[in-house]
């Protein structure tokens, strides 16, 4: 037993956990299957996928780096307005290219504000992230000649995707476009969180002091992941504008940031799929509550939040996973029993 772990062993374990699980293949198959099976539901499914991407972005900083943000909508909003302005003034006509530019704009903002966020304790972070989002909202309202003020950007017309696919009113192109973007970004995020860089982020989340003691440059890593997450949020915002042809002040709103945390908590933090599953559960809840009480679904969302916290997030996840886990255990013990009988 040596004192230090050789790099090969670390690499071996990292690769093992990074391997694709069969459930992951199932997840993406189901997602694509939904797209094929329910062509009349493209709009709501696009919303879910987009929200999933946005939550994935928050998961990168909250689940992996442990930064609690109350103002993640700031980057969503910057992405949304960038994409809208680019399309409106015909600066970058091609949607995919405009998407990248909008994401980069959000990333620049993320990089600039990350230095403010990494300073101080949790509470200061909450305040600063919240403050930045509110600041941007106030700015967008102030410069209404650029942003359209409370009316939002109007008259956005999207050019065909890659010059080939026209955005249709049923949202078919929009849906597959969003899914494709999500999948590419998901692969990238997956690669990042399983890399040594991602492992070091988890070390920082668990104990920043120890992480810096073993030689991890804590602040540089946090700046990097914050910028990266801002890029993702910007892309989600740009997708919002491109698929709905709309950008209004509420992209910056506090409710959007708060809902996002709920989405992530519903799905669970720190395993990338949390945001995607959470987005589905959240939209289903929202639909159900809207049918029950059209105007007051906010009450039920609030109740869900309170109940989740009172029961405890870990316990809740244990309950949810109880059935699948016990089935898996039964299958496994069945297999070994069968193997023993032979």
């Amino acid at each position: 037993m040596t004192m230090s772990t050789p790099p090969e062993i670390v690499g071996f374990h990292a690769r093992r956990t990074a391997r694709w699980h069969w459930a992951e293949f199932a997840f993406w198959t189901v997602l694509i299957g939904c797209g094929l099976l329910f062509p009349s539901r493209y709009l709501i499914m696009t919303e879910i996928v987009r929200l999933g991407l946005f939550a994935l972005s928050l998961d990168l900083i909250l689940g992996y780096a442990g930064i609690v943000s109350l103002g993640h909508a700031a980057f969503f909003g910057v992405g949304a307005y960038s994409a809208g302005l680019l399309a409106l003034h015909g600066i970058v006509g091609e949607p995919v290219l405009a998407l990248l530019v909008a994401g980069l704009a959000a990333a620049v903002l993320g990089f600039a504000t990350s230095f403010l966020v990494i300073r101080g304790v949790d509470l200061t972070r909450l305040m600063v992230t919240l403050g930045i989002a509110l600041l941007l909202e106030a700015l967008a309202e102030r410069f209404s000649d650029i942003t359209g003020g409370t009316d939002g950007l109007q008259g956005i017309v999207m050019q065909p995707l890659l010059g080939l696919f026209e955005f249709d009113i049923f949202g078919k192109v929009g849906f597959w476009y969003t899914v494709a973007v999500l999948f590419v970004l998901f692969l990238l995020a997956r690669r990042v969180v399983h890399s040594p860089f991602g492992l070091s982020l988890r070390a920082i989340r668990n104990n920043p002091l120890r992480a810096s003691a073993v030689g991890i440059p804590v602040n540089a890593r946090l700046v990097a992941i914050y910028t990266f997450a801002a890029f993702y949020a910007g892309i989600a915002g740009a997708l919002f504008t491109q698929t709905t042809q709309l950008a209004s002040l509420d992209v910056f709103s506090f409710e959007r940031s708060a809902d996002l945390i709920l989405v992530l908590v519903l799905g669970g933090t720190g395993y990338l799929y949390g945001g995607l599953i959470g987005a589905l559960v959240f939209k289903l809840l929202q639909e159900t509550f809207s049918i029950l009480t059209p105007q007051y679904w906010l009450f039920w969302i609030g109740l869900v939040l309170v109940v989740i916290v009172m029961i405890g997030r870990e316990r809740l996840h244990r309950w949810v996973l109880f059935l699948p886990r016990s089935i898996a255990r039964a299958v496994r013990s069945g297999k070994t029993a069968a193997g023993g009988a032979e």
Partner: protein
Amino acid sequence: MTLLTILFDGVAYGMLLFVLACGLAVTLGLMNFVNLAHGAFAMAGGYVCAVLVNQAGWPFLAALPLAFLASAVIGAVLERLLYRHLYARSHLDQVLFSVGLVFMSVAAVDYIMGSSRVFMQLPEALQGQIDLFGVGIGRYRLMIIVICGLLTVGLQLTLAKTRFGSRLRAAVDDPRVASGLGINVPQVFALTFAFGCGLAGFGGALSAEILGLDPYFPLKFMIYFLIVVTVGGSSSITGPFLASLLLGIGDVAGKYYLPKLGPFVIYTIMIVILIWRPNGLFGRTAAR
């Protein structure tokens, strides 16, 4: 509008913010509990007062204490039922919980009272302005300054001189040692929490005239309460007090001189101060 009138309005606004937020200074600043739902208690007080005055025909000044009482009772019940389980939890859990409470309160009030702004019928004596050395002074704002000034002095004396005040300070400084000395720490916290909520309700009733009262009150003013506490720090009651005065005067002056920039000035100042002094202007540490 002269400079002095702006200053006067700013002070009244600041005092109001202080009464609204000083309960939060205790829960957030001292007990380190991120309570984003503080505004909901203020809203509750405001609506209780509005119902009593507008529908039951109570005089405004008689309804104010009831606003305090109602919010304090709600606060005490919620503290015993829910909040106390969360003192030791992570900040993320506390944020989720209190955001959930805010959402529930917003929708519930919207459901019961409707979404439009509520106006309070003020007695004649409190309306209009009086002219003092050429400065127009609103009577209502003068009353706010007097009441809130008295409250502040009372709070400071309670904290510094009474037995309960020293118990609270001990419980906050080191709960373990305090309970070892025979102080009933949970009870002290519960009482303080309830009292803070009551003050918020009182402030909410007073502020209906100035800040406006509608179901979105807790969300709209959340950031202001948080600014008061984080900028003011938590070492004493004077920190939040000075911070709320600064915020009040800054906001009123900003809206008057730079109306186009809106709340931009306030947020910028807050971010700059938090970067410069993460523990607040007058604070020692917000998180121990």
